[in-house]
């Protein structure tokens, strides 16, 4: 963003004058689902040659709005104007025809097809694949985005930054003049973010209008020109490029934060955590300092551990690390590089084919999930809905699916409902799980409450080592603060944590040490004692450091 006093402000203003046409206008967009109004009369406007940042926490309604603009869903009411003309975006196909290109948060590339095939997927009309034409188009787009891409590589073999380039090329394949990016930096290394910035600058010069969605303030500042803030389904603030040009950076920050959290007392009390979540770049936020745990005994040790399973996922190979009691040990890395295999190998859901796992000196490599659980192992999985809970079972039962058959909740193979319900009620209250009743089906709860079920289940009954896998992903700030608070409380009581996350900010805030995993191997470990730690980790992720 360009603030007042920025030497390029006048230049920005001048370039605005020439190119500033209203590319896309969304007026009073409303979309409701049973129980919640996701978008409540939202207005958006984007100009060509400009990057609009759509800012808001998880659950504010950003994804719904984007799905409407991309044609995946239709609004209940409201109008959309493209280049001044009223348009109905009834399907992704129509969105494309209208010139809207979307890069989704989760890769839509098909890993078994080549880059070229992925790009040609959108081509229509002809029977034969136009390979030659596609190659030419790719060449033009690649030079615009800043980097050559081999059209014949399999999409699955691309590095993450390249993948995103291809995704952008794909979004622009049909000749778009509006580009929507959904949380584009969530999986990138810091260096790749800079590359993205450069690409966006280049696209802006071509006259493209860009909308990008994020819940991180420092990203908005880095990549956006104008900003619209969403909160609880409503648009609560819009600052145009011109307006920002008249404010200082700290003024802008203040206005935005206030619009996001003003008059919400609970948010204010959690404001430290909230600010950290939003905005690690700022000096106002406390930074975790690595604690001195040299006296603490090693509680969990992996020696040359390799995992194996039936799935087509990345397995871990030859992992060696040791964690001390009371430590918060982080695992950073690009999503899908073996994090799940590591977590499952530690808790027993996946077999260890080579190497050993020690708990307090005891070799537990051959123990199953139940046995390790009784020793104190716990696992908060990242797949809340399909693995963590059983959606069709009640909330009460979900709290006990890891204790089937145990006394006093089960007696002679049958459920002892009074004991189970009593304990379930206690847990629901302790962890503030919002549910209409004990018997409500788990799958109907919100993401945040499902996460609370997982936490209640794993943190109860005397845990010793808890593996957290992406515990705050997709959650609103309040719940994020709650989760982090519970984690810290557990540690302060002597517990040990292995925190797996793709969120560098989260890792640097909470961890003492962080290892980086890449393609199933640990490629480096850093101590959390410098402010440059994000860059260090990023370097490992890309494979720069030695």
């Amino acid at each position, binding site marked *: 963003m360009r603030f007042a006093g920025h030497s390029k402000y006048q230049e920005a203003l001048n370039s605005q004058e020439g190119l500033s046409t209203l590319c896309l206008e969304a007026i009073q967009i409303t979309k409701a689902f*049973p129980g919640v109004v996701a978008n409540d009369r939202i207005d958006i406007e984007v100009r060509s040659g400009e990057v609009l940042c759509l800012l808001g926490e998880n659950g504010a309604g950003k994804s719904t709005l984007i799905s409407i603009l991309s044609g995946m869903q239709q609004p209940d009411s409201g109008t959309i104007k493209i280049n001044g003309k009223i348009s109905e975006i*009834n399907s992704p196909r129509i969105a494309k025809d209208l010139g809207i290109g979307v890069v989704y948060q989760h890769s839509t590339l098909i890993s078994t097809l080549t880059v070229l095939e992925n790009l040609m997927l959108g081509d229509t009309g002809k029977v034969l694949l136009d390979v030659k034409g596609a190659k030419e188009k790719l060449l033009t787009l690649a030079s615009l985005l800043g980097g050559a891409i081999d059209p014949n590589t399999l999409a699955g073999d691309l590095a993450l930054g390249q993948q995103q380039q291809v995704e952008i090329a794909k979004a622009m394949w049909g000749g778009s003049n509006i580009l929507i990016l959904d949380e584009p930096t969530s999986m990138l290394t810091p260096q790749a973010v800079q590359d993205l910035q450069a690409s966006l600058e280049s696209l802006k010069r071509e006259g493209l209008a860009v909308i990008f969605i994020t819940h991180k303030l420092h990203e908005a500042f880095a990549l956006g020109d104008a900003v619209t803030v969403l909160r609880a389904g409503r648009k609560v603030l819009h600052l145009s490029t011109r307006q920002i040009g008249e404010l200082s950076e700290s003024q802008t920050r203040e206005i935005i934060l206030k619009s996001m959290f003003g008059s919400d007392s609970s948010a204010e009390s959690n404001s430290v955590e909230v600010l950290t979540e939003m905005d690690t770049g700022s000096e106002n936020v406390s930074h975790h300092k690595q604690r001195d745990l040299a006296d603490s005994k090693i509680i969990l040790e992996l020696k040359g551990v390799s995992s194996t399973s*039936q799935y087509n996922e990345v397995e871990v190979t030859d992992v060696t690390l040791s964690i001390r009691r009371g430590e918060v040990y982080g695992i950073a890395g690009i999503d899908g590089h073996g994090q799940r295999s590591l977590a499952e190998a530690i808790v*027993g*859901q996946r077999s260890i084919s080579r190497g050993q796992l020690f708990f307090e000196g005891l070799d537990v490599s051959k123990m*199953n*999930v*139940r046995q390790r*659980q009784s020793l104190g192992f716990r*696992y908060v*999985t990242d*797949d809340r809905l*399909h*693995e*963590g*809970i*059983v*959606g*069709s*079972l009640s909330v009460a*039962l979900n709290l006990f*699916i*890891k204790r*089937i*058959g145990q006394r006093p909740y*089960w007696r002679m*193979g*049958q*459920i002892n409902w009074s004991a189970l319900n009593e304990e379930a009620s206690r847990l629901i209250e302790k962890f503030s799980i919002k549910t209409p009743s004990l018997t409500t089906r788990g799958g109907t709860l919100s993401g945040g409450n499902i996460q609370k079920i997982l936490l209640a289940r794993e943190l109860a009954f005397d845990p010793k080592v808890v593996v957290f896998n992406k515990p705050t992903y997709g959650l609103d700030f309040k719940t994020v603060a709650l989760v982090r608070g519970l984690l810290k409380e557990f540690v302060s009581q002597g517990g040990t944590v292995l925190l797996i996350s793709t969120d560098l900010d989260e890792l640097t805030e909470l961890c003492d040490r962080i290892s980086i995993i890449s393609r199933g191997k640990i490629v480096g470990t850093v101590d959390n004692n410098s402010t440059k730690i994000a860059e260090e980790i990023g370097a490992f992720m890309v494979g720069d450091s030695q």
Partner: protein
Amino acid sequence: MKSRKLGVDFIRTVLPVLLALFSGGLLLLILGKNPINFYSDIWRFGIAKKSWQDSATMFAPMLLVAVGLIVVFRANLWNLGYDGQYLIGAALISGFSPYLTQHMSVWLAWFLLSIMAAAAGAAVTIIPAWLKAKFGTNEIITSLMMSFITIGFANILIKGPFQDPNIVVPQTKVLPLNHMLPHIPGTRISIGLIVALAMAFGVHYLLSRTSFGLKLDIYGASSKSAQHAGISVPKMVFTLFLISGALIGLASSVDILGHWGYVRTNWNPSYGNAILPFVFLGRLNVLASLPFVMFYSVLATGGAISTQRSGLSSDFLLVIVALILLFMTVIEYIGTKQDLGQSYIPSGLKRFLKFSKSEGDLG
């Protein structure tokens, strides 16, 4: 409110059957047969006077097969090898029963034979279960392959060692009536019915009231959740397949010892295929499936004679069963959409309908 839901559920489950019977009637007309005669024959030979007792005897093996299917389908395991599991039991029983019943007390013989049939049925499921548990290999095709192999093997046994040496027709020795299962006093229903009912209630208890049943439900919902909860997935796969195979094998023992008394080659009553839609209609719940299996046993018993009298192949019943399945899936779909308050017209069709209406007329 609850009674209204019960009413809706009743309609949703009975409607597919009614529609299928109606469509069946139309087909009969097309084939030049009289549907009224056809259906009244089914009533006459399936229920009227004492015919219902014949249906009750047929009910026993069908119920066991139904329970065998429910156990695996609830867990999303597709044991489609039921024909082979049934026939190997049938072959072994009809092969050994003439000799065993001659040399020991009949009750002991029946007991041993039943164990043998159940064990054979279970044994046939081992390879598909192992491939699924160890490699995740699709059990649909492995159980089907096993089924064809087992049926062929059963035929070899019947034509070979089990062949009745005194006749030319390829079949086993016929078990004399006094060595077959007795009837329930006062009726001509085989006591196999009691065995079947006992098994059904036992399995129902297992599925609905024990921790094993809960683990099964969790595994059926998601095998990942089951792993997460510490349930051993391979153990579950094996156990369920073995139980299923055993129940189906037991069905053959009740059937042969209680009704047929012998087995011909290339004979396959294929209860599994016929019962499949009904266990789904019963929402994979043992008790709820009872009325449906009863209905089908009447249809099959009456239908066996009714198709003959109409000059139709007995495979016509298969057509009715297929129709029930198809109608059931559609009605289920409509019902689910209504439950969710959603339209059941797919959005593409809706838009089409929208465009064909006049401008101001949009829902």
